[in-house]
């Protein structure tokens, strides 16, 4: 379905888009970041927390990283302190980039068995389909954050993949 090259491209895109959204959110007050704007997870901060939770959960399954800690264990319904969230995001993006540098086409082509968080049921799927889900999940929720940031009057960077700057 995908090769390591797709993974590396999306890892760069992830870092670029997070840099843009976190920069714009950082210019807002805590009250603006935590204002319930009607998105699925309510606020800018909770939605960003949820994306980080999803990424950390999947990296723990797929790449053996530590699972999400208690600060992000409730899928974004729990507000992570902004300064902590920023540091955790930068750390996660570095881990995704590192993973992108190591992943092989062979690994992506295998099946992968994982256990669901709640029912503790074993599920088996193609490894690469889970990777596509991880990146699609980010883009979906970043779209919501982008909408809340523009409604708050900020100007995030372009979001189109072909316009990704070389420095990312």
């Amino acid at each position, binding site marked *: 379905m995908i090769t390591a090259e797709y993974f590396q491209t999306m890892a760069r895109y992830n870092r670029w888009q997070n840099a843009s959204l976190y920069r714009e959110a950082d210019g807002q007050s805590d009250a603006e970041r935590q204002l319930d704007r009607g998105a699925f997870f309510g606020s800018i901060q909770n939605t960003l927390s949820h994306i980080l939770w999803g990424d950390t959960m999947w990296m723990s399954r797929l790449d053996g990283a530590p699972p999400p800690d208690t600060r992000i264990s409730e899928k974004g319904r729990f507000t992570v302190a902004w300064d902590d969230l920023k540091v955790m995001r930068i750390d996660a993006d570095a881990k995704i980039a590192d993973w992108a540098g190591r992943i092989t086409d062979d690994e992506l082509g295998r099946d992968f068995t994982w256990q669901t968080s709640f029912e503790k049921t074993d599920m088996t799927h193609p490894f690469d389909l889970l990777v596509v889900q991880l990146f699609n999940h980010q883009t*979906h929720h970043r779209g919501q954050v982008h909408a809340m940031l523009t409604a708050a009057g900020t100007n995030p960077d372009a979001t189109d993949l072909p316009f990704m700057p070389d420095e990312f």
Partner: protein
Amino acid sequence: MISASYLQQMAGYNHRQNQSLYREADLLSEEQRREDRGVFFGSIHRTLCHILTADHIWMSRFDNWDMPDVRGGKSPDWITGWAELKDVRQTSDDRLPQWGERIKDTDLQGDLTWQSGIAGEDDSAPTWALVTHMFNHQTHHRGQVHGMLTGFGMVPDETDFEFMPLSGT
């Protein structure tokens, strides 16, 4: 690089997600669909129209669909009637999987050169990266529409891939 199976997965996901968002948007009033909610293209209608226009622009390059007669900043206003927007979306979502069935992995290799409506000049990039962009672009803007719909109290379907348990990841 991506293979044809990625296209098939994403074309199916696109279809299911559009059915969910259009079903919920259909329950809103015309005024609600056109209300400026502060997203990049303002309203639910204009954002959905922008996704559709961009899909057609890219599919005209990938699969010889008719190129829309609007480009760039006019993309959210290509189709201004809700009933027509729904119809064209449905037709497009029926066509996308047919392309997914026909395409070969080798079609996705190599570069594609196109005239950019935004940059105003010829641009070139690997075909697979542009196909990835089209699907990522859909998900990004559908995320905005999803945020506006829940803001109106609507309940779109799950947005994870369909194999995911309903309790989330």
